[in-house]
């Protein structure tokens, strides 16, 4: 059976994580008038049109002006509003990086930065619309929680937690429908990774939309080779779940990290930096977008080109376990 078809039998399909973000924000806004969405002509792509219709007093439109988006959100947050600044991740985290650094993180204004259509979600729209730098750029900024939820459950939980958090938070969402990757009603907290599949021979650490192909690869490893692969959703890239990494280091089994981000400065390097300094001896591979002009194509074609696919992850695991 083709790996792409594999999961559909086992997993309940959900919606795009960014749709769940919008639905969750609506629920919160109905109960809390301090919830404010700030948009940069992005309410359509952020699925916030119904939000704007229901809560016109709780949405602030700034037009296509991302620096102002983040600055205004910082002012709103400083005045006590729970401000969610929503814009495509590519613009939010590049155009407004200085506002994120100074007005949000350094000034400790607890804005919730919501990067939508992240990674290569925009596919053929090209590099201008891809965010393959955001983990790296934001990891180098003090006082910012960075979260890329894998599925609808993690998304809803992350939005709820972000709304209650007194810290600045960056939430990163894709626009592809995601299946539910584990039981609901699990405990979810920032900085605490979720095991979406247990395993003992190998660990695949992924985040965001790459947890799903990692899960498929793990299932194929089991069915084809009887290899038991653990799959971890490291939804919070900062702060990292170092307790989980300590456990993996102790067992010395191979680790593969997978991310929809350039290999420079992302999830893989964050894990490697921690593990190496702890003296870990695991075999270790980072899968991500290489440091080159990104190939053109749809999201799936781009990810497939670089092996960030069930087949690609399976092949890497087979190679690593040889």
């Amino acid at each position, binding site marked *: 059976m083709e790996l792409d078809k594999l999961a559909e039998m086992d997993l309940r399909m959900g919606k795009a994580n960014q749709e769940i973000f919008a639905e969750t924000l609506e629920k919160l806004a109905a109960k809390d008038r301090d919830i404010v969405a700030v948009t940069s002509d992005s309410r359509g792509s952020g699925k916030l049109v119904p939000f704007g219709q229901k809560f016109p007093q709780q949405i602030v439109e700034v037009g296509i002006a991302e620096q*102002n988006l983040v600055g*205004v959100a910082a*002012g709103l947050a400083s*005045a006590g509003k729970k401000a969610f600044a929503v814009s495509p991740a590519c613009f939010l985290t590049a155009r407004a990086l200085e506002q994120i650094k*100074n007005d949000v993180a350094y000034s400790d204004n607890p804005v919730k930065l919501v990067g939508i259509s992240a990674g290569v979600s925009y596919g053929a729209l090209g590099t201008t619309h891809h965010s393959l730098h955001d983990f790296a750029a934001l990891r180098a900024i003090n006082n910012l929680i960075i979260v890329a939820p894998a599925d609808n459950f993690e998304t809803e939980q992350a939005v709820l937690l972000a709304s209650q958090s007194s810290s600045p938070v960056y939430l990163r969402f894709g626009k592809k429908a995601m299946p539910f990757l584990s039981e609901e009603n699990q405990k979810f907290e920032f900085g605490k990774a979720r095991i979406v599949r247990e395993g003992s021979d190998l660990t695949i650490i992924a985040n965001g939309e790459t947890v799903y192909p990692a899960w498929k690869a793990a299932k194929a490893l089991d069915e084809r080779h009887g290899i038991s692969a653990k799959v971890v959703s490291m939804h919070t890239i900062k702060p990292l779940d170092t307790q989980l990494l300590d456990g993996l280091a102790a067992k010395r089994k191979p680790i593969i990290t997978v991310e929809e981000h350039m290999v420079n400065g992302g999830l893989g390097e964050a894990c490697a930096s921690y593990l190496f300094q702890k003296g870990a001896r695991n075999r270790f591979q980072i899968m991500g977008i290489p440091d080159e002009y990104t190939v053109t194509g749809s999201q799936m074609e781009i990810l497939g080109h670089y092996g960030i696919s069930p087949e690609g992850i399976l092949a890497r695991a087979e190679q690593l376990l040889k």
Partner: protein
Amino acid sequence: MTDSELKIKSVLLRKNLLKYIYKAKAGHTGGSLSCVDTLNVLYNRVLNVDPADFKNPNRDRYIQSKGHCVEALFVTLADRGFFPESDLETLCQYQSHYIGHPTKKVNGVEQNTGALGHGLPICVGEAIAAKLDGKSHRVFTLLGDGEMPEGSNWEAFLSAAHYKLDNLYAILDNNKQQITGSNQEVMNTDSLREKLEAFGWAVREVDGHDLDQLEKALNQGPLEAGKPSFVIAHTIKGKGISYMESVLKWHHGVPSPEQYELAMTELDTAEAQI
């Protein structure tokens, strides 16, 4: 405080900011001297802020976009009782909160600023929040003329007019110079009045060293109902010290011992003449 006491205060604040710049051997001398009259009027005649209850949600907000002229802000806050003036002995020293730009670690400072073009967008957010909550406090920012080319300012100018933020006041410290030369040479921002009016703001031009004109422009409600207010304060860089006035090197020049003595003598004379 009488009008003449307020004038004497301006001289005192100039002495203090020079004292601490001289001691720290660092600071933005010229710009601090050009905007200190505005700060004096704001903190002693305009802003509803209480040093003992600074976090009161109904306080007026003041966010200094031209953060590099922090010395003028620090001496004004100290004089107003936000912290002991002796704290400024540590200006720019290891582990001091009194660094070369405003930080919230200092009582009385609203936001961490310093990178230019950041103050106004934050003020727009504060002003929108006040409107959403039906609060009547006002939001003020001080912009430098050198930061007017920052695109983020123009994004914020649009949004402030769009949301009819008549609780928002931007004051331009228009001393007409920046680090490289005159504004006109570096990047021409002439016709600011016309530009801002076209952007939907109400504009008034005042002599930025005339305390009465400043107070009237800032303390009698919005310049026009339903519009944000833009007050162009025409100032002189290095104002009050003869050899510094409009001389470019005093952008961040630090006086020598002889120059410092001369400056203090000039300020003593100015004080005696009030």
